[in-house]
């Protein structure tokens, strides 16, 4: 251990010991601790985990934390628990694709605080803990909802005080279910149903495609009508004799089965308690292919087991043993790339027109069609390339021991716990290839080949050892209450196989919570955190926080108020950080250690007069920065917890997050320096916003009901990011929110009148520098009035792709055993670029690069009076072309649309059988329910462009309908 740190540790523990002793000395007139019964403040309560979050009483907390319980997780059900977190104020959840085993949501806490490098998205870098130990997103994302007791979001400096370099982007704190004293129970939970695509934007059929293609070709031919498709061909498309293949229909099914089954054993006595969860989940994909020896649909299977055991070993010791194992099996046709980002199947489905070829090239359906331009016949590729599968195994064991040291001094305790978490990924593929034919001849290099199995038993491996040691003291004397602890965490992570690196850290943290007269609360927290990412001497950094709260409702003037049942005001300020801001991995795996110099062989130079011999050049991967340190966040928060009429609870939060030292590549280095890549802690951002959450419980006659809603607003600003100064301030992305859309400002279409007879633009009109233009092309505003439309005419043309506002609302009602619940969720304040990713480009750019055409292209500008085509006045899309067109398809306001939407996330109708019926069946509880996830969406993007607002990749977003039963014996 570092020498200075060693001294600090000793000093801190000595100080803590002395402090405890002093308190003990004062504690002559000992009184039992005031045991204030808490008001119903469930939403703020953090489940006790025996370490850093020792402030288990929501009443005494000064922190901004929001929590969700298991029952809600089970309602908005998804294989990935990350999709069930809607409704937590301050946690923004963005659903992604519904691809089995890849449906994890993008999460961010309080919006975007950093544009930092990690994962390529600085907004998705919160740290996740399960039962006090840090876990990977992959571990958390596919936990079973049945094993989770609660999920909390830690948002402000008071909540994050002890997390040091893990706190800057917030923390998700998960606790798992533990046994409680009482009768043993066995609970079965089974749900099964069907899932289907929310929406798929299908391309035009051959007839409509060909009609538009004729226009496009004529446009490219100087507006002279030169159709490619003859009237006879068009007629054939229309009467069904021409080639017209709906590739989506040929490769996809309407729906796919989905099953989740869990069994929970729980119970315990004074001595020991247990909770054992056993789960099975299976989700099939939407591909129309059977599971055989050589083909496979996509699917995700999960088998998980968790046993949480508690032992009370007498007056001093309490022990915990948690064992958790999980197997995840993912299978997919060998027509996807494992990274999912360049998914071949969906790319081809969106890009391949309906009229390219029939599925088979011969009548007896043995030769699959394919051309060099369209090589991957979607049906053939789905059925004739084999499949890929991988198996992920998690094995985790936690052991904890708590010592109640009341024999030394009342309220003193110590706790030590250890965690071993192991991860293994192995792959097994069976692949082959098929020949592509046209007219009886092969057209590509592909040949029919036999199935070849390949296996990689050690595709990924991780071992993670963590140690936590806590010493705490909790006491009350007179009007004073004290709750304090010091915690030491040591984490040792190593990965082999594809990982090949280590991550170690140490964190000495602590907290002192002091309450006076049950009304005034002050808290101090700190973390002395050491990260292995930095140079010796620069590894340890200190992060303090202070916070306070005032329970006003306990003051005399509010004590008997009939309106305000409870009022608590909170404020916090403090510093946290992150050490996870590595440079992009393109700079080598040494990018984590930017303080060290690394070299690598890059490029090849060939010599010799026979077969050329290759020689790699040795280059510095980047220039070392010995001062490289953590990105730091200064957080401020004020909040209020309010209960009115004993039934309406309201929580308000407002925050400010000042981020400094964001790791950023220095972009100010002249090119004449040559290979000079330098990263430094120079970026700055500001993020602020607020959250409101309300909950109302009511009952009228026999109907009990609950209404709830929450809203989060986040607004950030990039203050400095080493952007090369732009020519005009309006060009810059600095000074604007992260992800702001920057581009040209569209100004309608060029009309016939804008051109001279020789086709040149009339004088007075600015010349676009993206290529020559003709009538029907997009016209842009010349912002700098220099007579040219170029890269200097870009400005903010929309909002960020991330919403500023996330909201949810809903309610539940019960009547005589029946219950109905609804949850709506939506976002506002974001923009979607219709050309924003390759899948959106495929749908919204017609024909270019031999691609498809969609309904949007039918609104194109066209003028062929002899053919009866004239859309000059009504056009909603630029003139069609088959050529690349940098003028029309540049990022411009024309393609930027509002991304606002509201979705009904879940609706569930259930019936709980009455006691009389179930006691006869020897049951404690029996519930039947029907449930729908994502059944209805309101979105302008969907109505106008047939694009789902959460469409991010090829595989569509999913809705599902399930029925289920919960039975407790």
């Amino acid at each position, binding site marked *: 251990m570092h020498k200075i740190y060693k001294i600090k540790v000793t000093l801190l523990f000595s100080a803590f010991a002395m402090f405890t002793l002093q308190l003990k000395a004062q504690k002559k007139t000992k009184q039992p601790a005031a045991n204030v019964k808490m008001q119903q403040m469930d939403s703020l309560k953090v489940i006790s985990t025996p370490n850093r979050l020792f402030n288990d009483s929501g009443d005494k907390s000064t922190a901004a934390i929001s929590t969700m319980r298991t029952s809600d997780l089970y309602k908005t059900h998804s294989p990935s628990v990350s999709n069930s977190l809607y409704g937590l104020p301050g946690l923004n959840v963005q659903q992604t694709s519904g691809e089995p085993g890849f449906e994890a949501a993008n999460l961010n806490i309080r919006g975007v605080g950093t544009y930092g490098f990690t994962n390529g998205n600085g907004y998705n870098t919160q740290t996740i803990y399960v039962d006090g130990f840090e876990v990977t997103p992959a571990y958390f994302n596919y936990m079973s909802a049945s094993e989770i007791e609660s999920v909390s979001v830690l948002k402000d400096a008071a909540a994050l005080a002890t997390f040091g370099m893990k706190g800057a982007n917030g923390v998700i704190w998960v606790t798992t279910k533990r046994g409680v004293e009482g009768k043993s129970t066995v609970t079965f939970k089974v749900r099964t149903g069907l899932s289907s695509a929310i929406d798929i934007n299908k391309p035009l059929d051959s007839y409509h495609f060909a009609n538009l293609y004729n226009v496009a070709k004529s446009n490219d031919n100087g507006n002279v009508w030169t159709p490619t498709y003859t009237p006879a061909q068009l007629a054939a498309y229309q009467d069904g004799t021409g080639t017209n293949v709906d590739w989506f229909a040929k490769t996809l099914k309407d729906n796919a089965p989905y099953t989740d089954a869990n069994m929970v054993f729980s119970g315990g006595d004074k001595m020991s308690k247990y909770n054992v969860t056993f789960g099975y989940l299976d989700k099939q994909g939407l591909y129309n292919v059977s599971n055989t020896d050589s083909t496979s649909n996509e699917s995700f299977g999960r088998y998980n087991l968790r046993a949480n055991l508690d032992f009370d070993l007498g007056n001093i010791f309490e022990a915990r043993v948690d064992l958790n194992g999980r197997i995840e099996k993912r299978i997919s046709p060998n027509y996807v790339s494992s990274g999912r980002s360049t998914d071949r199947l969906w790319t081809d489905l969106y890009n391949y027109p309906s009229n390219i070829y029939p599925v088979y090239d011969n009548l007896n359906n043995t030769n699959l069609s394919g051309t060099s331009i369209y090589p991957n016949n979607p049906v053939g590729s789905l059925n004739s390339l084999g499949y890929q599968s991988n198996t992920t195994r998690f094995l985790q064991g936690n052991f904890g021991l708590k010592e109640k040291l009341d024999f030394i001094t009342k309220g003193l305790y110590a706790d030590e716990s250890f965690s071993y978490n192991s991860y293994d990924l192995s792959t097994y593929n069976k692949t082959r290839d098929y020949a592509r034919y046209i007219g009886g001849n092969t057209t590509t290099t592909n040949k029919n080949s036999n199935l070849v199995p390949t296996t990689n038993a050690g595709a990924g491996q991780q071992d993670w050892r963590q140690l936590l040691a806590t010493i705490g003291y909790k006491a009350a004397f007179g009007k004073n209450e004290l709750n304090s602890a010091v915690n030491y965490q040591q984490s040792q992570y190593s990965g082999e196989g594809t990982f090949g690196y280590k991550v*170690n850290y140490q964190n000495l943290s602590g907290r002192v919570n002091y309450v006076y007269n049950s009304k005034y609360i002050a808290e101090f927290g700190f973390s002395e955190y050491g990260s292995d990412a930095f140079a010796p001497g620069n590894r340890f950094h200190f992060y303090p926080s202070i916070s306070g709260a005032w329970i006003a409702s306990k003051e005399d003037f509010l004590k008997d108020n009939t309106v305000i049942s409870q009022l608590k005001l909170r404020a916090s300020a403090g510093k946290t950080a992150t050490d996870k801001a590595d440079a992009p991995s393109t700079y080598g795996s040494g990018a984590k250690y930017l303080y060290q110099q690394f070299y690598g062989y890059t490029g090849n130079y060939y010599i010799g007069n026979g077969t050329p011999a290759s020689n790699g050049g040795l280059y510095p991967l980047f220039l070392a920065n010995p001062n490289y340190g953590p990105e730091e966040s200064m957080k401020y928060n004020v909040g209020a917890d309010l209960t009115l009429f004993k039934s309406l609870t309201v929580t308000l939060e407002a925050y400010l997050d000042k981020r400094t030292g964001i790791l950023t590549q220095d972009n100010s280095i002249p090119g004449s320096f040559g290979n000079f890549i330098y990263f430094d802690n120079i970026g700055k951002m500001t993020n602020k916003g607020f959250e409101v959450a309300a909950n109302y419980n009511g009952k009228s006659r026999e109907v009990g009901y609950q209404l709830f809603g929450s809203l989060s607003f986040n607004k950030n600003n990039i203050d400095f990011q080493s952007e090369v100064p732009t020519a005009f301030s309006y060009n810059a992305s600095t000074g604007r929110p992260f992800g702001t859309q920057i581009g040209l400002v569209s100004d309608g279409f060029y009309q016939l009148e804008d051109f001279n007879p020789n086709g040149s633009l009339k004088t007075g009109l600015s010349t676009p520098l993206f290529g020559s233009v003709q009538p029907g092309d997009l016209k842009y505003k010349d912002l700098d009035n220099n007579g040219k439309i170029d890269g200097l005419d870009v400005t903010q043309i929309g909002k960020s792709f991330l919403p500023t506002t996330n909201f949810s609302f809903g309610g539940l009602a019960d009547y005589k055993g029946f219950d109905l619940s609804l949850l709506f969720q939506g976002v506002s304040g974001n923009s979607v670029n219709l050309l924003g990713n390759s899948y959106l480009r495929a749908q919204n750019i017609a024909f270019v690069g031999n691609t498809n055409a969609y309904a949007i292209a039918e609104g194109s500008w066209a003028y062929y009076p002899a053919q009866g085509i004239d859309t000059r006045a009504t056009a909603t899309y630029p003139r069609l072309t088959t050529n690349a067109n940098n003028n029309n398809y540049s990022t411009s306001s024309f393609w930027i649309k509002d991304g606002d939407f509201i979705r009904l996330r879940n609706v569930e109708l259930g019936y709980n059988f009455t006691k009389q019926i179930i006691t006869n069946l020897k049951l404690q509880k029996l519930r039947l329910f029907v449930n729908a996830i994502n059944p209805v969406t309101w979105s302008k993007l969907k109505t106008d462009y047939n694009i789902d607002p959460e469409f991010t990749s090829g595989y569509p977003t999913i809705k599902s309908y399930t029925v289920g039963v919960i039975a407790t014996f």
Partner: protein
Amino acid sequence: MKYKYIVTIATSISLLSMSCNKDFLDTKLNTEQTPETISTSAGSLTGFAWAFYTPLRDGFTALDNNLFATVSDEAQNNLPSNNAIYYNQALLSESINPESSIYKSYYDGIRAANNFLDYSVNADQLLLIGRDPVNDASSIATDKQNIAWFKAEAHIAKAYYYMELIKRYGGVPIVTQTLQQSGKVAIPRSTYEEVVEYIVKEIDDNKANLQVNWKTSSFVANDGRFSLGSALAIKARVLLYAASPLHNPTNDVEKWKRAAAASKDLITAPGLNLALNQFYGSYFRVANTLTSAETIFAIRRPANNTLEKENYPLSIPGGKGAISPSDNLVSDYEYTGAPSATDPYANRDSRLANTIAFNNLTFNSQVLDFSPGGINDMNQANGSKTGYYLRKFINENLNLVQNGTAQHNWVVFRYGEVLLNYAEAMNEAYGPDNNNGYTLTARQALNQVRTRSAMPAVNILNTTSKDDFKVAAKHERRIELAFEGHRYWDLLRWKDAETVLNQPIIGIKVTKVSPGVFTYQKVNVAARKFNAAANYYYPFSRTEIVNSQGALVQNPNY
């Protein structure tokens, strides 16, 4: 006494936390090279040396994954999306330049060369690592010689990169050391002439330390590194460019004399044994060019079929037909006999059929047919726009369906070009028929090139004047060096670009009369635009201008 327990517990936790490995936070990577690993390995010397070679670019993938020819009047790019359009439509700007990455990557090479010169100061110690000075004396001596060559080559590499940079940008900053963060100050542009002098000095100062000719040395496996021949060829080409109208507006004849002398030095340098390859066609289309006495410096590529995939006619499975050679070029090939009424490609300079695949020619066992309904129908999607496909450089025998590959070598300097450089400079300096005491006159040099392709000598009657001969020399460069990446830069340095590159690209419309009988008609394929006020130089990217904080002055009219 209870506080004793507390102290005990506090101490035991402290001990627990300290019981971990002392170097707990000293996690290390053993997968990357570090200063320690390179300082103990002689291999780092050659590693740093190859680093100044790796930024070299061959011309096969210069633009749009294809030849650079489509920016000039040699050809039109046929693909719906291509970067040649920025040249064709005079759209180069501060923010748009398909070759903008060259600036940084050639300075990468210059930095690597400077870095190697710094690092190799300790070469002698590094070479002794793990060796016995007595027993290993001979291999140590060989390695020392090798490093000495590399040191000289580092200077030649810099000369090469500066040659390529000033061709594009005019004067550029001269960087003579490995720049560090502490001195993060942009270096201002030197003038074009200053960089030319710097290149000449680098070559003159270091040529004595270069390997003369790898091909004929006992280190033939190292052929492909810079040699005396490449150094002199760089100098000859740089001085030719420097004497040309773009850089020599007053037509200072001394510059031409200097260029002629530099070419003469190369032609007569002992040990180089330069000679023209016997056949033009086989040099480019069939044989391994590396062992030919014509090759001075070539960049090798491992066997591949990129060029064939891009440029095979569309009728051959796997071919894209990306480059459509222009009829502007085709019509410049001389007739060797009476023009045929039915076949415009009969009786032409033999280099035509070695450069262009035209209608009715047999290519990869197919007879090309560009007429409507033919296998290369120009109206089909991505069909040839001009009625021609590329033939030069292409290996016609590959089966792309079976992913057949062939090795290709990009010849940077060859004797044919040297003779033409010499002819052009000698004519400007001394006229077509004055040898100034050198071995060859301008005319003799030019005719050597023509004779190889069985073309008649340039007629003395028609080209007695300097100006007539200049036309002949320019014509010969266009034909002989077609598609080798010279045309665009020749047009710029001659200041002919504003006329030639504002002419439309012409193609041929082929009509079939009967099987094997065609008619041919010229058609305009694409308009071209060249902005004489700006396009003679590349624009520096805006980022460079801004980051130089005033040190880098933008070229005019960008």
